[in-house]
């Protein structure tokens, strides 16, 4: 595989073999020192072989070796002759992040941080076992899956303002619960309002630095302000939907005569029954994840009310925005001067629509869509804004996080969970975790420096730095 540097932070993989388009990777030169980078770049090339892929197989600076698609991958497939691949979305469908602002400052929260984190831990279940905050009756999950966060609005768990500030309004179109297996419904029924395990977390953070005052002001955040970040997905409901469909698609791809370099790239032509069913079920999982994060926001509001003895309205616990980073969406983009309908796969990548886009809520439309980038536990996270450049170059997409450097196993060998906890506590961060071992797996040294990742997307113009946040308290899945 040939790799050509075409810009300070841009690398091209010219088409060879079965590749239909080039690969394009936005990255810092240090990518080439990273373990597993060859496998990740091979995955970029593999995605370029999929039928109907438009322009390029793209990867963001947080790229790392995944299964099928690389993590950090973006691929737009033509709606007319392209495919949809469940592996290009992943098992955790609509894994995403929401950022919540408050009217509280660092001084208001510092002395109440321990009780606040305790209250959050009590209300937001972590790990893969416990029941979520919302218990649904038999049959109700299907409606939640079709309506997403809007289902919760009718129950008093979400406001109109919350829906407005969620990607897709918290309700992905095309969801049909008839396409969801009984197994997925069984797994999901008790999980709405739960954080899950792995790299999922809930953090109380403080805005440490504002780099774009106009955008920050539009997003309602300023220096010294306390915010909450929630990173979670569609739990077992989404995992089961992906599992159900990857198997079916492997056969569909074979029937359509599509040669796959990796079975996890299993796909089906858009418009085929397999693709239609997957997309209807995937939309249900997206809605489940929107509702899951919304239910956790409801619990966050409850925790703030209890600890600060005022209504959440008065405490200003409002949703800034909610973004998806594992998803395949139908979008219209201008390609070589012509509007084309494409299915944009974002696998560990975030939508970053620029100013003026009708899909950006009216109050943010002048500055671009908020993009929320969770850092690794205990360092920093970022709030960015979408740009015109992203619309032109990456189908309106940018990075999604820090990007792994060390495997979980390797991370555990560096330091124990107890040591990581102590280091975080020494830095003044309150830590609550379902699994102490999990703390080591998600420790800062296991990840690329999120500041480097954000610096690349800012430098190439895929998004603009708005604000940097530092954690005060971590609730770890």
């Amino acid at each position: 595989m040939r790799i050509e540097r075409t810009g300070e932070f841009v690398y091209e993989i010219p088409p060879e073999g079965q590749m239909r388009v080039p690969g394009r990777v936005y990255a810092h030169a240090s990518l080439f020192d990273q373990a597993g980078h060859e496998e990740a770049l091979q995955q970029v090339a593999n995605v370029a072989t999929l039928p109907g892929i438009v322009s390029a197989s793209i990867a963001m600076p947080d790229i790392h070796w995944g299964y099928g698609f690389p993590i950090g991958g973006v691929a737009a497939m033509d709606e007319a002759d392209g495919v949809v691949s469940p592996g290009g979305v992943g098992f955790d469908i609509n894994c995403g992040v929401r950022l919540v602002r408050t009217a509280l400052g660092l001084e208001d929260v510092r002395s109440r941080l321990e009780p606040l984190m305790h209250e959050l831990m009590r209300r937001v279940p972590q790990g893969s076992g416990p029941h979520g905050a919302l218990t649904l009756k038999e049959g109700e999950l299907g409606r939640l899956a079709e309506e997403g966060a809007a289902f919760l609005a009718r129950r008093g768990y979400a406001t109109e303002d919350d829906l407005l500030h969620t990607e897709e309004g918290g309700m992905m179109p095309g969801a049909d619960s008839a396409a969801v297996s009984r197994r997925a419904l069984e797994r999901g029924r008790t999980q709405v309002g739960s954080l899950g395990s792995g790299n999922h977390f809930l953090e109380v953070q403080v805005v440490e630095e504002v780099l774009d005052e106009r955008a920050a002001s539009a997003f309602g955040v300023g220096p010294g302000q306390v915010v909450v970040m929630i990173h979670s997905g569609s739990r077992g409901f989404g995992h089961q939907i992906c599992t159900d469909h990857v198997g079916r698609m492997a056969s569909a791809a074979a029937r359509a005569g599509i040669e796959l370099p990796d079975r996890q790239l299993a796909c089906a032509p858009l418009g085929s029954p397999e693709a239609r069913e997957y997309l209807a079920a995937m939309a249900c999982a997206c809605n489940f994840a929107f509702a899951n994060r919304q239910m956790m926001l409801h619990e966050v509001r409850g925790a703030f009310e209890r600890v600060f003895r005022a209504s959440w309205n008065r405490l200003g616990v409002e949703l800034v925005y909610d973004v998806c980073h594992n998803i395949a969406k139908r979008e219209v983009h201008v390609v070589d001067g012509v509007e084309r309908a494409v299915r944009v796969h974002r696998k560990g990548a975030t939508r970053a629509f620029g100013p003026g886009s009708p899909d950006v809520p009216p109050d943010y439309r002048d500055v671009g869509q908020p993009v929320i980038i969770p850092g690794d536990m205990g360092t920093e996270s970022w709030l960015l804004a979408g740009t015109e450049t992203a619309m032109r170059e990456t189908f309106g997409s940018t990075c999604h996080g820090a990007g792994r450097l060390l495997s979980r196993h390797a991370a555990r060998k560096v330091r124990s969970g107890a040591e990581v906890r102590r280091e975080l506590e020494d830095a003044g961060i309150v830590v609550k975790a379902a699994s102490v071992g999990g703390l080591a797996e998600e420790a800062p040294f296991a990840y690329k420096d999120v500041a480097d990742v954000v610096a690349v997307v800012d430098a190439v113009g895929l998004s603009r730095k708005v604000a940097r946040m530092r954690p005060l308290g971590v609730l770890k899945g």
Partner: protein
Amino acid sequence: MSAGYPSMSVGYELVDHTADIGVRVWGPTAEEVFEQAALATFSLVCDPLDVGELTAVEVALEAESMDLLLAAWLNELLYVFEARRLVLTQFDIEDLSDTSLRARVSGEPLDPDRHIMCGGVKAATLHELSLERRDDGWEGFVLLDV
């Protein structure tokens, strides 16, 4: 090593992969390889308490090939864990062919207050999935999304 030591032992090994965890499994028979893969997966899900009675569940699966069956088996067990809330500890493969599997699996009811959760597993992927018969037994590889 004693004279009775089998030419191929039974076991599993967790293999590093940047964002996920690979499981390499081996054993004299395909059935043992399936059981080892299940043990490896649950070692990443939850530590059992090993007290009280076990609840048994029957599992029956079909797939186009035996390696796809191996991935489907692990995904089925993750479903049983979440939907039936059972921390699975025993895996008895009763019948295994190239395209079908029948098994009886048992575990203890999940008690979130007492069980210690490990990192958790989302699913078994098909990336680099393999299951091969060798001269002295079977060897397989499954990449888990964790």
